[in-house]
């Protein structure tokens, strides 16, 4: 890595630790977190357990901080967590607060433990996201599982392996040094004798504590279990329908809840007549200030009871609509957040000087609409109270965050709330919060019985949160040599992730202005990096066009980041860039960048129907590099899936709203990518076994939208600068 790359890498890292959190939704901290794992050994019984006296800043960076303080370095608590257990008999159990939401980390983390511990993959059980059993974790977001939890579990497994070697050495009264750990056994090469881990664990109640957390790790270049393609482990229940998602959990005596929603954001309850609902058999109406809900023995009765509630509402305050959205954002930059703006401001040289010296100048504005995550499983929770203790099964990316929200809402001690997170029907950054869990718990408290609450699709579209809309201004100048001499990019509202440019430009300013915003907004796959890549990479192709240069050549001319260059060249090679047009309406585009330690480049081929302007993305080639690859199969799915999901935001997804109402809160009104939208997707994975693995759930989505916008321009000469680009096709003259 050259010096320049090192600097950029550091900048990227800084951006990574800060940027993803800007719109992550957090509950305010309410109490001091108790880190002890009471009763843990009692639960585990005998065997070998591994704890970590954490001095690992990466893991501690996930300490629970919120608001402004989250950007500072918090005082690091000594977190004693229990991560791994080997039972007599050899079964290995791994505990992590990360959760499985379709990104396939149950498999990829198990692979890394198997590698380091030297056991068969199928001897490992991953216990995930159960707040009573796993060490504290801030949540599954920000592409942190692979770069942070992976190495963490590898360190733990390495320490466990070391402990087993010690136990074997003691058993045989020999030196530990020559002993070999393999296939779940310790072997003594001198005598050929072997002993299974499970036998070594027999009769032990040994808990090894790893201090400083720096045991030797197997280099990815030498991986034999990790680094290989492995299918989703434990997949059979998903094809038989037996896997229990959060919405499938059933408890004895359970009843079903429904929540009364206001007709618009900000409308408050004026009056309620619940008599007709209460008259229905088995129905309980629960009211707590503005919160009103019903429970019934069956969902269809709960629906009837909800419909029978006669509520009147105070009118909602005046609110902006999607029609005035971008004006609103630009006019409402929030000066009280000036400090935060400064944090993301980045200037080299002087943009004004650069523009003054430029031969050609460029100024454009790009916008992105609010879009919804629309995970196929809406928010769901089953809540059960027993003797003042609360247990909630719910779909969330932040089980501990939801637990904290429950603790705060119901004024309970932390150890009175237990949150479990069965592998859920995905999230994409959209399930960080615990609304549904809180509502289910409130209903259960009122009903005196366990309550299941599943949000309807309409509720999910309306009462969850959205990917922030944004306005992005770009100014640039081209010098006489056709190279950029000035670059300025300012994002309003959607966020600072990837607002910096990876291109070498002598005069540049990039920044982010928080604004007031009309809808509840939060995380989304890659967050603002989608918006910022869309703006920057669209502008780069516009500037290439202005300079009379090829889109790819123009980029490469401004790139010294070798890794980004590699993915651009890899994608271009597979795509046969610049491509040859063989029919009218065909066009090719490219886009890429750096985010969360990964490098992505996407080439897209579109076909715009000359008659009706409809756009079809025919082919997508995406090259992605995220360091050492842990599971090429899972990675392929994350990368290909991101293209498919990205197509929606690029072409047609947009939340429409007015007067505090979402106008398209259904799949019949809000179009998401379907089978008929599927292009030929080719994924080129660049493996860098010499580099630590980075996350892959988010970054691969970044290049798709600009590549499609650039391809539409190539096809039609029409430049589209608003995402979604063509919800109703491209209007051609």
């Amino acid at each position, binding site marked *: 890595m050259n010096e320049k790359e090192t600097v950029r890498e550091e900048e990227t890292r800084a951006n990574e630790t800060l940027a993803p959190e800007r719109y992550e939704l957090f509950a305010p901290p309410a109490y001091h977190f108790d880190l002890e794992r009471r009763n843990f050994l009692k639960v585990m019984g005998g065997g070998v357990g591994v704890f970590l006296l954490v001095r690992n800043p990466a893991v501690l960076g996930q300490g629970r901080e919120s608001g402004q303080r989250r950007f500072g370095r918090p005082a690091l608590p000594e977190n004693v967590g229990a991560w791994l257990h080997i039972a007599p008999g050899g079964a290995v159990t791994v505990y992590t607060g990360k959760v499985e939401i379709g990104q396939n980390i149950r498999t990829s983390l198990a692979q890394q433990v198997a590698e380091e511990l030297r056991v068969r993959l199928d001897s490992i059980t991953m216990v995930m996201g159960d707040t009573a059993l796993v060490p504290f974790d801030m949540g599954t977001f920000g592409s942190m599982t692979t770069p942070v939890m992976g190495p963490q579990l590898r360190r733990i497994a390495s320490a466990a392996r070391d402990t087993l070697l010690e136990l074997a050495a003691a058993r045989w009264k020999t030196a530990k040094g020559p002993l070999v750990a393999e296939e779940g056994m310790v072997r003594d090469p001198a005598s050929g004798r072997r002993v299974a881990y499970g036998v070594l664990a027999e009769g032990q109640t040994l808990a090894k504590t790893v201090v400083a957390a720096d045991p030797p790790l197997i280099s990815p270049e030498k991986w034999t279990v990790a680094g290989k393609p492995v299918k989703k482990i434990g997949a059979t229940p998903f094809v038989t329908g037996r896997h229990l*998602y959060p919405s499938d959990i059933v408890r004895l005596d359970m009843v079903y809840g429904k929540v009364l929603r206001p007709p618009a954001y900000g409308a408050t309850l004026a009056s309620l007549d619940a008599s007709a609902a209460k008259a229905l058999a088995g129905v309980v109406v629960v009211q707590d200030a503005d919160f009103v809900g019903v429970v019934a023995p069956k969902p269809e009765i709960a629906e009837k009871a909800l419909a029978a509630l006669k509520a009147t509402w105070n009118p909602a305050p005046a609110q902006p609509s999607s029609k005035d959205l971008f004006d609103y954002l630009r006019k409402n930059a929030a000066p009280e957040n000036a400090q935060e703006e400064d944090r993301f401001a980045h200037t080299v040289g002087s943009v004004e000087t650069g523009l003054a010296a430029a031969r050609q100048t460029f100024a454009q504005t790009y916008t992105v609409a609010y879009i919804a995550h629309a995970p196929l499983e809406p928010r769901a929770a089953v809540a059960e109270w027993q003797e003042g203790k609360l247990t909630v099964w719910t779909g969330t990316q932040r089980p501990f965050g939801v637990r904290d929200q429950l603790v705060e809402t119901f004024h309970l001690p932390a150890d009175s709330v237990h949150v479990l997170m069965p592998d859920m029907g995905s999230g*994409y950054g959209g399930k960080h919060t615990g609304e549904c869990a809180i509502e289910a718990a409130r209903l259960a408290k009122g009903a005196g019985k366990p309550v299941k609450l599943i949000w309807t*699709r309409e509720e999910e579209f309306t009462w969850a949160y959205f990917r922030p809309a944004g306005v992005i201004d770009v100014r640039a100048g081209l010098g006489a040599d056709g190279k950029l001499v000035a670059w300025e990019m300012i994002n309003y509202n959607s966020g600072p992730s990837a607002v910096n440019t990876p291109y070498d430009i002598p005069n540049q300013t990039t920044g982010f202005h928080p604004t007031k915003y009309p809808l509840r907004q939060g995380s989304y796959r890659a967050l603002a990096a989608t918006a910022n890549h869309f703006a920057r990479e669209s502008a780069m192709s516009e500037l290439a066009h202005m300079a009379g240069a090829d889109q790819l050549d123009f980029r490469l001319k401004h790139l010294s980041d070798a890794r980004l260059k590699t993915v651009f060249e890899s994608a271009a090679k597979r795509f046969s860039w610049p491509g040859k047009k063989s029919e009218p309406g065909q066009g090719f585009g490219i886009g890429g960048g750096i985010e969360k330690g990964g490098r992505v480049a996407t080439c897209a081929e579109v076909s715009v129907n000359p008659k009706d302007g409809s756009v079809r993305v025919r082919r997508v080639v995406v090259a992605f590099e995220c360091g050492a690859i842990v599971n090429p199969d899972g990675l392929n799915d994350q990368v290909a*899936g991101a293209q498919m999901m990205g197509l929606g935001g690029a072409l047609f997804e947009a939340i429409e709203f007015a007067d505090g109402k979402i106008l398209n809160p259904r799949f019949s009104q809000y179009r998401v990518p379907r089978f008929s939208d*599927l292009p030929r997707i080719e994924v080129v994975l660049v493996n860098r076994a010499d580099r630590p693995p980075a996350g892959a759930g988010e970054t691969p989505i970044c290049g798709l939208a600009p590549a499609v916008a650039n391809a539409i321009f190539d096809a039609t000469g029409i430049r589209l600068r608003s995402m979604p680009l063509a919800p109703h096709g491209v209007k051609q003259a």
Partner: protein
Amino acid sequence: MAIELNVNGRSYSVDTDPGTSLLTVLRDHLGLTGSKYGCGEGECGACTVLINGNSRRSCITPVGHVHRQKVTTIEGLERAGKLHPVQQAFLDADAYQCAYCTAGMIVTTVALLDSNPHPTDAQIAEFLGGNICRCGTYPRILAAVRLAERALAQGGAR
């Protein structure tokens, strides 16, 4: 009112309003939670079941309409502990990420290959066009349908 149902070869009598959705009856009366709720308007396919062999959206099917008809859910596809060839194909093709859409995809594919044993890619895309996979795993699902097609053509046991 008591509705008589035949689900996965078993007879049930369910006490509910005939307007209750079949999906609610399957999930919350019969405990068959393999069929999923995704939209409640027949737009996402997660709730797909077979009614007399045809794929139908159980979330918009009033249970009264299937009185005494033959309903097959994802739980009813296995035979004697052996996965249906379509289930096996999804497993072999690793054709899911979060897998919440999988039951609906599998049931829809069973209906597709039953009516059209050798569909074109376009026919597959059309038949599965009502099934949303938000994770975007369509390429692998397509591969799974092809695997299933071959298995069934080679006389995969039903």
